[in-house]
């Protein structure tokens, strides 16, 4: 079976044409002032780990596959590609009309170099594991395989790249949009070593190139003239601001100093809705806020207790009265909105809260708890205003079902350390998708490092393993739906709400589209006068 992704290409051309129309009306150099919500720790695609860094790095670099303004995967540095019959060998034909910002062509070897570098244990890249589906990637990263040439990424010629996977991975093309799979300019990295990321040294292949980085102040970038689509890129210069203080960023936005900002102070949401409704953008995101339950704890091994705890949480109150920023109550672990996947909801969804509480009380009584003999539970959260408010609300709701909750908080580094060593009973956690696929969420309930609660169900694991090797997307989604069904029926974890994207976007900014992945590449935008 050979799959040609020509429809994707057509989409690109269409969006490019739309952008071109926008451009023709503009003459003067355009500068976009963009608040990114935090100071990047690094601009080296091999070390990036946060979305505030991705806003910059994703403008500077481009992988084989990239995202359009709606967050959909479209061809990037690859013109097109073929996939072999068992879905393990991808052959990419690279563009020949695009180059690094210093004029050198982008070659297949640059991809081989970039992917070898991130997997090299000496690089110590945090996110290297995203590429583990590639043949021998895991062994190389663990130091078991010293010979980098054994990696399943090969340059067949200057503009043909072949990637061999260890097994069929349905979400692999989406993963290629991620910064872990960006090419790196081998000639520059070898010349400057780790200092290649400094402005003046850095060379990039995306729509923009880095011109200046003043820590804690701004990062400046200008158009890369060698980028294949550069004629259709409307914004000439971008200045990114590390707007850590959301309230201060809002003031700068109101004063016209920022054209857009990632997030806004949530406590001012009602004011914003009243006074700046058009510029306050709230849209669903691919992420779940949940409470993992520690399955190693005897108290929580009782499914009746887990069910009661989940049922007693009034999610609507939490989103509408506690958070008040447009979050969506969650009744499934995988958020809705994924292409061919139907999220599996908790059995009590739709039950009036009064009834739910009565049933939850009955369950707790069956499990041997009562007003005089309450269940003592510890609820951990990382220090943050919203987490605290939610925890307090949940503790009040649990009180009705004979639970005495002890709230414990710690700063974020400590919190996740405790989760890691499983030193908790119930805790706060959140997950934002790395790539738009249900597997990214469900893997948190498989025996993986991020499975804080230690949920372990043989049938669930079996279904996930089957899904991992299934080529047909519909059958695969079916297996994953069955797996989520099991986890939901066992109340393996307590989903509370789905995250939303919060953005401030000025009316002047055109070409900004809300999307699940919150992907907003500057290349698609323009500024109206």
């Amino acid at each position, binding site marked *: 079976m050979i799959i040609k992704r020509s429809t994707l290409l057509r989409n690109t051309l269409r969006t490019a044409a739309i952008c071109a129309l926008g451009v023709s009306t503009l003459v003067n150099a355009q500068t976009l002032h963009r608040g990114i919500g935090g*100071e990047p*720790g*690094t*601009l*080296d695609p091999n*070390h990036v*780990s946060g979305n505030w860094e991705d806003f910059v790095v994703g403008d500077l670099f481009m992988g084989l596959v990239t995202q359009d303004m709606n967050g959909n995967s479209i061809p990037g540095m690859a013109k097109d590609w073929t996939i072999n019959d068992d879905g393990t060998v991808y052959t990419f034909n690279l563009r020949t009309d695009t180059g690094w910002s210093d004029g050198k062509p982008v070659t297949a070897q640059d991809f081989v170099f970039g992917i070898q570098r991130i997997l090299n*244990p*000496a*690089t*110590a*890249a*945090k996110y*290297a*594991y995203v590429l583990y589906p590639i043949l021998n990637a895991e062994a190389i*990263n*663990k*130091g078991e395989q010293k010979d980098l040439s054994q990696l399943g990424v090969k340059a067949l010629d200057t503009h043909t790249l072949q990637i061999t996977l260890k097994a069929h991975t349905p979400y692999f093309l989406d993963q290629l949009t991620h910064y872990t799979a960006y090419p790196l300019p081998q000639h520059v990295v070898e010349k400057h070593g780790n200092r290649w*990321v*400094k402005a003046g040294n850095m060379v990039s292949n995306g729509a923009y190139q880095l011109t200046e*980085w*003043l*820590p*804690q*102040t*701004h990062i400046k970038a200008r158009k890369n003239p060698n980028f294949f689509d550069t004629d259709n890129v409307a914004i000439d210069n971008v200045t990114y*601001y*590390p*707007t*850590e*203080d959301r*309230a*201060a960023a809002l*003031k*700068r936005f*109101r*004063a016209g*100093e920022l054209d857009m900002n990632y997030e806004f102070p949530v406590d001012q949401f009602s004011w914003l809705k009243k006074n700046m409704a058009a510029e306050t953008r709230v849209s669903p995101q691919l992420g779940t806020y949940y409470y993992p339950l520690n399955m190693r704890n005897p108290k929580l091994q009782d499914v009746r207790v887990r069910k009661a705890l989940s049922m007693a949480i009034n999610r609507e109150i939490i989103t509408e009265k506690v958070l008040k920023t447009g979050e969506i109550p969650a009744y499934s672990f995988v958020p809705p909105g994924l292409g061919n996947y139907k999220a599996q909801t908790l059995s009590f969804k739709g039950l009036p809260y009064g009834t739910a509480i009565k049933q939850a009380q009955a369950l707790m009584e069956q499990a041997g708890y009562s007003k005089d003999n309450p269940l003592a539970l510890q609820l951990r959260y990382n220090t943050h205003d919203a987490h605290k408010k939610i925890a307090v609300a949940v503790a009040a709701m649990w009180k009705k079902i004979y639970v005495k909750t002890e709230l414990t908080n*710690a*700063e*974020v*580094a*400590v919190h*996740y*350390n*405790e*989760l*890691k060593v499983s030193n908790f009973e119930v805790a706060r*956690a*959140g997950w934002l998708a790395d790539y738009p696929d249900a597997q990214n969420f469900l893997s948190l309930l498989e025996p993986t*490092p*991020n499975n*804080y609660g230690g949920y372990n169900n043989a049938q669930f694991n079996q279904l996930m393993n089957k899904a991992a090797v299934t080529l047909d997307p519909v059958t695969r989604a079916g297996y994953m739906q069955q797996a989520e069904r099991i986890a939901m029926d066992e109340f393996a974890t307590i989903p509370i709400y789905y995250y939303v994207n919060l953005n401030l976007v000025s009316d002047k900014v055109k070409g900004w589209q809300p999307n699940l992945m919150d992907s907003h590449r500057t290349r698609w935008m323009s500024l109206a006068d």
Partner: protein
Amino acid sequence: MRMAPGGPFDGERKLPPEIEANLLAAYNMDQPLYLQYFDYLAGLLVGDFGPSFKYKDFTVTELIWSGFPISFELGMWAMLIGIIFGIGFGCYAALRQNTPGDYLVMSTAMAGIAIPNFVMAPILTLVFGVMLGWLPAGGWNDGAWQNKVLPILALALPQVAYIARMTRGSMIEVMGAQFIRTARAKGISERKVVTRHALKSALLPVISYLGPATAGVITGSVVIEQIFGIPGIGRYFVQAALNRDYTLVMGTVVFYGGLIILFNLLVDLIYGWLDPQIRYE
């Protein structure tokens, strides 16, 4: 620092153990603590504070040297304003003790001390940046003077208040001293009594406050820097500790310690100049 739970690589996501091992090895953190410590000391001798764990593209030295000149400039202006207006208001109030003028200055000063920076700074940006639009609401803009006015003002206000209170207190005390009566008895004009005799002694406690205060103000303020978006070094003191950025914490602490020593030395020298009794002979 190392005893604080959590580490520089703990985050929202748990890393696979092999990746964590790679990271620890890359930062020499897989060695015993005493070896890491000696390595660090050896680096310090040649002015190398090591790489930052959080801001990977910069060394600690680079971060301090990119931020310090900015914090230094703002802090120095703020201290200058603090000294001039603080001493001025303090003297004014002391010489008119228990008059409406005194009460006005002192109650304003009390308010200046009581209102914390994180309240004052947003008020300033809201009034001058958003409502009146006279000055930028934030940002550094490569050091344009317009961008410096509000942060300097926000930094200077509490200093004006502190110094004014301190000057008033010690001025009142000095004005009642024997040598002032003697000076007056000799028929020296009141102006000269105040400027030549009283002020010099009254300033001693103010000067001893100025040493550590200057070191504190010129190393920036995390609140002011975040609210105005200024690239100083104040934020590193707080953020580095929260991020468990061991090298950056050590770097800023060593640097701050050095400044405190330097300013206390300056204070001692100024003492000698102001008060002959303190001089070493």
